[in-house]
């Protein structure tokens, strides 16, 4: 009864047999990549709990919730545009996912320089995002929004805003550092022997941070 590569069973049983088969459950997936996926699954639960907590206090608070599209509006050249900054931030972050995907592609083609440059471009987009977030925080703080209260309505608005965007911004900042370190090592040729899967692993984290932002955008800014 040694392990054969021929499929002997089908359906659910076959699926389970594949999963539990010899040596590794995910064939040709490296340890690092497996670990990153599992970490991201765990991190998903953290962000989910944050968002559920936010929705929950939004329901329990007895003071009206501020209108997000008014709070996050900017007046540019005399035009009052709701959510414009957030739209730009979202656009920047999603663009960075595109450059990241290109970097992964270049890595596997062993175009070391292009991969490193694209990763650094991704990191720069990340820095832009964090910079705009800092601008947004400053603006809100100037308008009197604090974690414990704000002039527009429910105190939980400021609390949830600073906590969730802060935790996400922290993730982006970590990602920028991670990207920069890996990019410099790629540029130096550290991965010539082992291959460039590390670029993809870094990319997994980065895409995850982008995806989380989409949910924060939908649940916090659009709702």
């Amino acid at each position, binding site marked *: 009864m040694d392990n054969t590569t021929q499929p002997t069973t089908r359906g659910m049983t076959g699926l389970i047999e594949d999963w539990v088969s010899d040596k590794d459950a995910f064939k040709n997936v*490296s340890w690092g990549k*497996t670990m990153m996926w599992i970490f991201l699954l765990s991190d998903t639960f953290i962000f989910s709990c944050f968002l559920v*907590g936010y929705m929950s*206090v939004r329901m329990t608070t007895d*003071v009206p919730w501020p209108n997000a599209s008014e709070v996050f509006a900017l007046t540019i050249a005399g035009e009052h545009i709701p959510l414009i900054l957030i739209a730009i931030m979202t656009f920047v972050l999603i663009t960075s996912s595109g450059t990241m995907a290109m970097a992964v592609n270049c890595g596997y083609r062993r175009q070391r320089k292009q991969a490193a440059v694209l990763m650094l471009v991704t990191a720069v987009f990340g820095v832009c995002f964090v910079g705009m977030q800092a601008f947004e925080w400053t603006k809100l703080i100037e308008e009197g929004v604090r974690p414990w209260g704000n002039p527009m309505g429910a*105190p*939980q608005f400021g*609390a949830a805003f600073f906590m969730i965007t802060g935790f996400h911004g922290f993730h982006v900042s970590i990602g920028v550092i991670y990207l920069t370190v890996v990019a410099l090592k790629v540029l130096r040729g550290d991965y010539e022997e*082992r291959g460039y899967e590390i670029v993809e692993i870094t990319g997994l984290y980065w895409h995850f941070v982008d995806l989380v932002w989409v949910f924060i955008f939908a649940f916090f800014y659009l709702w």
Partner: protein
Amino acid sequence: MAYADDVENEELHEPTGFIWKYVWSQDHKVIAIQYSTTAILVGLVALVLSGMMRMQIGFPGSIDMDATAYYQAMTMHGMIMVIYLLTAIFLGGFGNYLIPLMVGARDMVFPFVNMLSYWFYLVSVLVLLASFFVPGGPTGAGWTLYPPQAITAGTPGSEWGIILMLVSLIIFIIAATMGGLNYVTTVLQARTHGMTMFRMPLTVWGIFVATILALLAFPALFVSGVMMLLDQTIGTSFFMPDMMQFGSQLDYSGGSPILFQHLFWFFGHPEVYIVALPAFGLVSDLISIHARRSIFGYRMMVWAIVSIGVLSFVVWAHHMYVSGMNPYFGFFFATTTLVIAVPTALKVYNWLLTLWRGNIHLTVPMLFSLAFIVTFLVGGLTGLFLGNVVVDIPLSDTYFVVAHFHMVMGVAPILVVFGSIYHWYPKITGRMLHDGIGKLHFWITFLGTYLIYFPMHYLGFLGMPRRYYAYEDYPFIPESAQSLNAFITVVAIVVGISQLLFLFNLAYSYFKGAPSGGNPWRATSLEWLTPETPPKHGNWGSSLPVVHRWAYDYGVPGAELDYVPQTTSAEEVPVHESDHDE
């Protein structure tokens, strides 16, 4: 990046010098021992705290302990035992030691991260213990840390103690995540040749599923910890409603205390199984080995572990029946809670059927395993009472609950910890633990814990509430309850002190114990087949073992010995796959 196939080509960096070998070690075996030692030491603190509480309950005023100190002792006892002892020793201790050895790996997949995991754990323990020395002392909010009382004035340690507790928990979660990622990845991706997942010992299955639960449940505790920390330090109102204190309105407004309970128990209930599943796995192996009998229904045991793990995420609100909830939710959570009894009972039956007609050796690990079944059964049956809404409400917050959870998730797992230490100590040190001291320790611990917790069920029926500082002068508590309390205290002190026997045995046998050889229990699984005992760095010498069969070939017909190691090929002794396939 290493693939499973490249493992043999990986270079082994043997650490040199005392510091790198034993302090900043990346070897999973050393990390396991560091984890276990720290966990046992901090567990002793919790044990002493429980002794002090018992003195106050059994003989009020006999020691210098006021109500504040009592609540602080109670909180710290609960939190240390559940998180810093049991979770740490099962995942960080046994998980670290046994996973790579049992699946035939040289180490965890990322040894450096594994090392960091221990050091973060140590920091979390130090932060927790530091709370004894801050103004106001440690938090006395109860181990569930329910707001608003956890962070409002009047609760012991509501200023500094609670902050240190939450910070410590957050650090612990980071440590558990770093370790947990390693354990899961190692089980999934770093098994040796022939080691399919359905050939892994149940120990690995138990720890594997428990670690997945930890990775998905700790986030809820992390988030609630962060939110409460913000409420306490900068005055947000996540968990704090509008409230009056001492005649004045507090600055909080509109938060949801129930949200904390949901988040806490979304972590808290899986936490029960984070502790229980490794115990299930370990005890399955102990029973099979010491009864010389292949485990009954191996695959069903695996599916039971997996389904208990899945179900444990949809039962959390059974801890909140008295918090008030929609009756339909109560119905849902009562149903899921009772459904968990099915796979759990299946495991108990399978343990009994493994023992059935087995060649039972009453060794110390076997004694602890049998004691586990008996204790776990009682604890599980009282769980059926508490899982039902209508029965739970009158029993809630009485000593019945204390008896239930101490038996099911306190004593039962601790018995497995003891049994497992007696079982694997020879592999770790190369020497047997002293049998006579072990048996004495066993009988005092087993009978003692039964005498402590069994009577508590009656106290619960009498309506004796839990978490009271003193039980005098309450008309609804009969006089006789106090004599039972005094009896429990006497037994508790004896059991507490008798644990010194165990510590003495550990130390004594390390130097004077009888040499064990590589495989004293005649076991089949890989950790007993290492070239050296204790295993050296890299575990397997020059080449990894090759696995040909499951881990439970005991009493095989036609085999030379009564067991067949996992590395024995089918040519030497035929594999009876029909024995373990459905």
